[in-house]
């Protein structure tokens, strides 16, 4: 297994090159690039600039583990407005295009957003319909789309069996799950999700979660590895059971208030412990 971390973790005032240097020194093998979240990787970033981005990553001794985006929170595939939906599709297409340019074979997307206004059945149907052609496009590009389980946040596909049914309905080998072991909260157990989805897991986001706290305003329920309630020995064992040997990607929501670089070192070392199974 290899370790990666999001470029949106790089302190805002550091810049890309300094950030990449830190990521490498901390012991990561790759970096997750967040389309739309960082100044160096936007929807307006040209192909030439994306190639230059890849060169910088490789010069730092890293590779791009995957392309992710948070843009679908504002422009979901499940939107009723056809214009917003078209933009959501374009974001996925751009993720696929840039993944190819960056030498990666995986992208992340938040598949849908259930709200008071847009109900579950519509969101489900619209996401399935959107993902079928996108899956074909991804397959042609040699890229897999990982729909992230954002259980609590998108109020959608809350259980692992339901998520499996969703992927069955999309029915594309190029569409799987980008599993976040911290996002499951009180609704289940990450190790069971890993078992159920096995080969359909495109990437795994690692973070810990304080299950009993619940969100309160801006207070995060997510925390550094081993500080929360995830059962890490069980998670590691489940990865072994299903033969997952792909990328593990750190996604920390709560940041160190001081010495932000230290969080990179601590996280990388904790991930080494997960990988080695010394838990």
């Amino acid at each position, binding site marked *: 297994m290899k370790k990666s971390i999001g470029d949106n973790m790089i302190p805002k005032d550091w810049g890309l090159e300094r950030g990449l240097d830190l990521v490498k020194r901390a012991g990561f093998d790759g970096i997750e690039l967040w389309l739309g979240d960082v100044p160096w990787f936007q929807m307006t970033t040209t192909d030439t600039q994306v190639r230059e981005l890849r060169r910088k990553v490789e010069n730092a001794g890293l590779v791009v583990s995957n392309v992710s985006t948070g843009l679908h929170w504002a422009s979901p595939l499940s939107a009723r407005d056809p214009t917003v939906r078209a933009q959501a599709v374009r974001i996925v297409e751009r993720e696929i295009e840039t993944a190819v340019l960056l030498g990666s074979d995986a992208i992340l997307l938040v598949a849908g957003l259930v709200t008071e206004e847009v109900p579950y*059945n519509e969101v489900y149907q619209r996401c399935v319909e959107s993902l079928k052609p996108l899956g074909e496009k991804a397959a042609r590009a040699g890229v897999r789309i990982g729909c992230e389980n954002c259980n609590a946040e998108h109020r959608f596909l809350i259980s692992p069996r339901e998520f499996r049914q969703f992927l069955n309905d999309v029915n594309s080998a190029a569409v799987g799950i980008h599993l976040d072991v911290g996002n499951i909260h009180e609704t289940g157990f990450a190790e069971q999700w890993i078992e159920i989805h096995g080969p359909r897991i495109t990437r795994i986001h690692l973070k810990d979660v304080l299950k009993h706290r619940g969100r309160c305003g801006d207070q995060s329920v997510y925390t550094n590895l081993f500080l929360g309630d995830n059962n890490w020995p069980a998670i590691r064992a489940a990865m072994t059971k299903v033969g997952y040997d792909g990328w593990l990607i750190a996604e920390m929501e709560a940041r160190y208030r001081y010495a932000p670089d230290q969080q990179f070192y601590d996280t990388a070392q904790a991930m080494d412990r997960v990988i080695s199974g010394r838990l």
Partner: protein
Amino acid sequence: MDLSRREFLSCAAAAMSHRLPIPSRVAHAVRPVGCILPVAGQCSLPESISGFHAALDNEPRAVLGHLVVVPALLDLPLDFARGIVSWLRHGATVIVESGAGFTGQLSFRRHRRSLRDGLQLAVHTPVRLWSEQRPFRRTPYVDYTWPHPAKIRDFSRVVPLEDQPGEIIARADGLPVALKRRTGPGTLIYLGSPLGPALWAGDVAGKRWLLSILA
């Protein structure tokens, strides 16, 4: 002149593929049999077409009667409108579903003008039911009163009706959003909040309401 559903649908498909407003055979059909007829290039919500198909395709011909559904309409061409008027005069039930809730101003003006010129329907500009300016929205439903009371999901933006001849058959947040008007032996039904997406998402109450129109 009678026109079978198969014939009618094939004409509709031809209209779409050739981007014609409406083929003459359809336009001159006196009694079309249960069909869904999007106006070529003027349907804003493909899922609405799918929704009506999902609700109606397996219904027997006898149930569908002389129903015509024009889903998610934007701009109604005049010759298409003439076809609708002709069908109404021969006893058809025509559902015109507005698809203009999400359109821009220019497109909406065309929508409004074409409804007024073609069917004498007068509508207000779209209202966004879920905006922050309307923080007290209580329920996400359109309340239908005819042919029976039904609660069907709204579609975020509605195109309300102005005062005009006909019976208001549904309201959303107090706004009149659906109208029934008798035209000779036929019935024109205008939906200012799309029904097709609810049908597409499997809304049982929506399908029951639709079929009850035909009873």
